[in-house]
């Protein structure tokens, strides 16, 4: 865990609205675990005020500019342009100064070596699953079920294939792969074999549907969640999610940045979204 004042190495559009950025990141090959994230400062001056959280897509080394120097360590992030911060990011070039705080949070647990692993990714939610696949592929059969709205949302699937991951693509409009939801494919797979571990990251409705399917099949599930974050280190308590057993009388809130962003499904409260845990203290902060 460190804050690096560093630079952008490259930044390319890989699909309409999706960019892949490589950032100089000393020590990340040793430190970063699949599922962890960084708090990214898009420029050294303000605005925007807050850092943006991004999952680590992969880590690596590239040759230094001259032979006498050690190779450069980098991380790659993949981001979708959605607002003010990511708009600034899409304009960054080689050498632009940025800051990385991380690697942060708890990553994925790898599960039993020989059992099959199913990764479920929705759109940009695919990002943290790549490093996970890299780590697991030598010991387990790994399948990726990748869903998106249209073909533009299906990113980096060929890279998973190159690792040896068996991939299934579905899009809601049928513009690539099967037409339909990725969760329908998951249901089919678990009916064939439920002796697997499932790892999911994507939009909340997808994650909720995956959880329903996995709990019906008694299949262990780990999910990676998103939350609004200010600090990323457990100090502001802005990023909480409801923990298992959360009730209005006995509320349980877990920090996504510290306890997560990867959770075992059993750690979390699912279903009843009554949001009833309003504090008795509505005014004070």
């Amino acid at each position, binding site marked *: *865990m*460190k*804050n690096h004042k560093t630079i952008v190495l490259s930044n390319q559009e890989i699909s309409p609205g999706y960019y892949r950025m490589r950032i100089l990141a000393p020590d990340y090959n040793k430190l970063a675990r699949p599922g962890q994230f960084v708090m990214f*400062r898009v420029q050294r001056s*303000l*605005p*925007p*005020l*807050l*850092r943006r959280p991004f999952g680590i897509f992969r880590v690596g080394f590239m040759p230094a500019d001259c032979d006498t120097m050690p190779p450069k360590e980098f991380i790659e992030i993949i981001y979708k342009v959605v607002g003010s911060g990511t708009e600034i990011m899409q304009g960054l070039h080689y050498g632009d100064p940025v*800051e990385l*705080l991380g690697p942060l949070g708890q990553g994925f647990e790898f599960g039993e070596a020989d059992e099959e692993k199913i990764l479920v990714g929705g759109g940009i939610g695919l990002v943290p699953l790549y490093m996970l696949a890299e780590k697991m592929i030598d010991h387990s059969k790994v399948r990726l079920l990748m869903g998106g709205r249209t073909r533009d949302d299906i990113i980096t699937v060929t890279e998973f294939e190159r690792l040896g991951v068996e991939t299934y693509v579905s899009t809601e409009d049928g513009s690539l792969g099967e037409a339909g939801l990725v969760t329908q494919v998951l249901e089919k797979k678990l009916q064939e074999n439920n002796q697997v571990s499932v790892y999911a990251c994507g939009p909340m409705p997808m994650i909720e549907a995956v959880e329903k399917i996995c709990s019906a099949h008694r299949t262990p599930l780990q999910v990676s969640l998103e*939350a*609004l*974050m*200010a*600090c*990323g*280190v*457990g*100090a*502001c*308590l*802005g*990023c*909480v*999610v409801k923990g298992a057993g959360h009730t209005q009388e006995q*509320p*349980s*809130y877990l920090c996504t940045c510290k306890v997560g962003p990867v959770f075992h499904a059993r750690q979390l409260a699912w279903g009843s979204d009554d*949001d009833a*845990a*309003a*504090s*008795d*203290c*509505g*005014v*004070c*902060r």
Partner: protein
Amino acid sequence: MIKRRKKIIRPRLSVNIAGMELRNPVMPASGTFGYGEEYAPYLDLNSLGAIVTKGLSLHPKAGNRTPRICETVSGMLNAIGLQNVGVDVFIKHKMPFLEQFDTPVIVNFFGNTQDEYAAVAERLDAISGVRALEMNISCPNVKHGGIVFGTDPKAISSVVRQVRKKTSKPLIVKLTPNVTDIQVTAKAAEDAGADALSLINTLTGMSVDVKTRRPRLANTIGGLSGPAIRPIAVRLVHQVVQAVSIPVIGIGGITRAMDALEFLIVGAKAVQVGTANFVDPHAMATILNELEDFCLAEGIDDINDLIGSLEV
């Protein structure tokens, strides 16, 4: 030949607040620095003037629903709902970590009744590692229709008096800016026995998502912090310094030494840094370096010469 280095006299940064000698005037603002341990990997806690904890209550508090935060222009809104582990867990599990450092620990606390305030203060008073108490009075008084203690001079007077009886440690009362005349509330706290004042807490604000037409915070309204509030905070500190004779700690939107200096020049004896910690975990270290550089460049050997040096 022996090279002689030109001797640089480092400026004196230490300040004295209510009998506490602080090595410098920079400390975190409550609720933005956790219980210290969250930022220890990034920052030497022994370099700070003091450590200020997240606000504690008598019993653990779960806090508000989400979303609890949202970014605004040069600031952020929060409605965390004062989630905290409670005073007993703090003493047992968080205090030992803080006691490793040679930095005064200021514990922020609150209550929803006068008795709750008094009970927390009494427990903290018994803990030797706690150097001072900071009392957050921006909380609704549930026994009096939820009116925020800090907006009612009578309520301030009464609750501060009761807490004063429970502690002999330095008592800092943290003022809310959401009042018509801050000089009145400041004076009420001073007269009731506060040893120092800190201000400002967050300004109440609101933001709406125009597409969904919903408030951006689950709690609808929240507290605004960050650079956006700084000019208001400087003005309020200036007014309070005029009205009281106890030391004042300035808070609000400080991100750089230049910002901290504004507060010191209007008369704050120290400053707290809040939201800036989220933006840059090294913010306070940078501010301290820059403060020293500023003093060297301006030929100031003692930061106390700057405090209250406003020319009008």
